[in-house]
């Protein structure tokens, strides 16, 4: 509460009752005292006495001081201070008193010691998170290589059609009716992609003996880069889970619909019975998951 904001009301209230200053002046003159005498007695400045007598209480420090000054002045003049106090009006309402200094900013200063203390739990949490990521990475690392080991003999087959050794014996045994055939056509490593794509006409020839039975479908994977893929048939049995090298073409026969998962999907083209299927709509972060009817 600044003086400026508070005094206008008080000054106007005093202005309606012009008695206070004039009563003081009249009493002083009746006693033959000068303003300088009074100022000396009250230890106040002459301008403060003149302001009081002129009723200019806004020039004085504040309501509490005004009341005190007027009381002291009345006492040395030997007049009753009570009516003067009453004319000055009541004290400001208690609720409006401001107890904290004005602030036009917000924020806390950093405290060196505390932040160093509190960094310990943060470090523990960060280390824990790092550990979780590392553990997850570790197990992921050892899970994905498994197909590679299984497929390795396939790749070694040098283009000869091979029956994929079932990864899991039981589903394969249960799926005796569904003929599973994976053909691998290895392009020469130095051959450009165009030549690598050329073998497909040969695929039907090599695959001809294994023409799918009625109700069966054939999926053809053409690899432009290294990738892995996994196919499950209608019964959910794993037909194949293997990796393909650049230039390879793999075919899978089985009972549709297939559940297909292809890693590094941008490098793989998928065909069903010779009809191309776009993997892009099914790709998320380079892995395509789709169901082929």
């Amino acid at each position: 509460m600044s003086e400026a904001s508070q005094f206008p009301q008080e000054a106007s209230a005093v202005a309606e009752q012009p008695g206070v200053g004039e009563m003081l002046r009249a009493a002083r003159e009746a006693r033959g005292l000068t303003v300088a005498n009074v100022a000396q007695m009250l230890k106040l400045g002459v301008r403060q006495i003149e302001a009081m007598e002129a009723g200019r209480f806004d020039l004085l420090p504040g309501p509490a001081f005004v009341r005190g000054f007027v009381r002291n002045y009345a006492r040395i003049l030997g007049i009753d201070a009570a009516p003067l106090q009453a004319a000055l009006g009541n004290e400001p309402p208690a609720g409006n008193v401001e107890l904290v200094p004005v602030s036009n900013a917000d924020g806390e200063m950093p405290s060196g010691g505390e932040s160093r203390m509190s960094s310990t739990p943060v470090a523990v949490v960060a280390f824990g998170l790092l550990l979780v990521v590392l553990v997850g990475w570790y197990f992921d690392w050892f899970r994905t290589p498994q197909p590679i080991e299984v497929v390795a003999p396939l790749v070694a087959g040098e283009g000869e059609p091979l029956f994929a050794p079932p990864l899991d014996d039981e589903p394969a045994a249960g799926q005796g009716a569904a003929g599973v055939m994976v053909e691998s056509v290895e392009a020469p490593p130095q051959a450009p992609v165009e030549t690598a794509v050329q073998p497909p006409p040969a695929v039907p020839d090599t695959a001809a003996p294994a023409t799918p039975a009625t109700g069966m479908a054939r999926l053809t994977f053409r690899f432009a880069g290294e990738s892995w893929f996994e196919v499950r048939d209608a019964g959910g049995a794993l037909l194949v889970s293997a990796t393909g090298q650049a230039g390879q073409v793999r075919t899978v026969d089985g009972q549709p619909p297939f559940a297909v998962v292809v890693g590094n999907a941008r490098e793989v083209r998928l065909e069903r019975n010779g009809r191309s299927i776009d993997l892009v709509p099914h790709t998320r972060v380079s892995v395509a998951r789709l169901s082929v009817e």
Partner: protein
Amino acid sequence: MFGSLRSYFSNDLAIDLGTANTLIYARSKGIVLDEPSVVAIRTEGGPNAKRTIQAVGRAAKQMLGKTPGNITAIRPMKDGVIADFVVTEQMIKQFIKKVHDSRLFSPSPRIIVCVPCGSTQVERRAIRDAALAAGASQVYLIEEPMAAAIGAGLPVSDATGSMVVDIGGGTTEVGVISLGGMVYAGSVRVGGDKFDDAIVNYIRRNYGMLIGDTTAENIKKEIGSAFPGSEVREMEVKGRNLAEGIPRSFTISSNEILEALNEPLNQIVSAVKIALEQTPPELGADIADRGMVLTGGGALLRDLDRLLMEETGLPVIVADEPLTCVARGCGLALEKMDKLGSIFTSE
């Protein structure tokens, strides 16, 4: 939510735990209790031997110096701090019980207590513990000059120096306040009690008469003054003549009381002068313009403001209702307790 629930059951209180008087301010009610800090304890014999509290406050004060052997009237506060912990705790408990209407729940208010700025950590801890033992849920401490300045209506939050001299029963606190905090705080253990002692000693020395503390207090209130005035007042006093051992009456004048009070008054004046010496010059300029404000019961001693005015050459004013300034200031702090932290003091 729990705060509002709690405030529904028990009202927060501000306590001016003074050496002479204890005042309690209840939130949104104002001052609800103003009693002398006196407890009368009765010791019972027989099969149910125990000590019970006979009276507190005004009733107990009337017993001071007039008690039979089985009753002791105690002033548990001395020099602004606790002299008797257990009795103080019981006194606060009794006062809180008096101001609490709710009988259904035992009161556990949050309490603001003011402490002298010269009190030690141990003394502050004792005041806090006494309030907690009396049933407070939380206790906040505020230094007396700050509470007095708020209660006197000084612009404590402005960037101007305000000087307040709070003359209580046990201590005189001098504080210079600016921007909501204390720039200088000084405390001397001189107050109304020392005035009474000085009067008792003066009369014994010069009249050979022994008077009690209550009589001395009455003399001080009646004809005591701090500055030689134009009129000399007289008062008839009764006491015990030390030589004869018989009660006698005699007449004492205000000039003699002025002489008796000379020493404690000088201590107050020098405390004020030290404060002015220690005040930074910018704030000193503000104080020279506005003067200092006297609060506390000691400010009612006749012409004490004139004494300080003549000794310092600065304007001195007495606050409105100086006796309740500290309690009202504590109360204002209580009303705004949740919004401000800077005016409270730690131990």
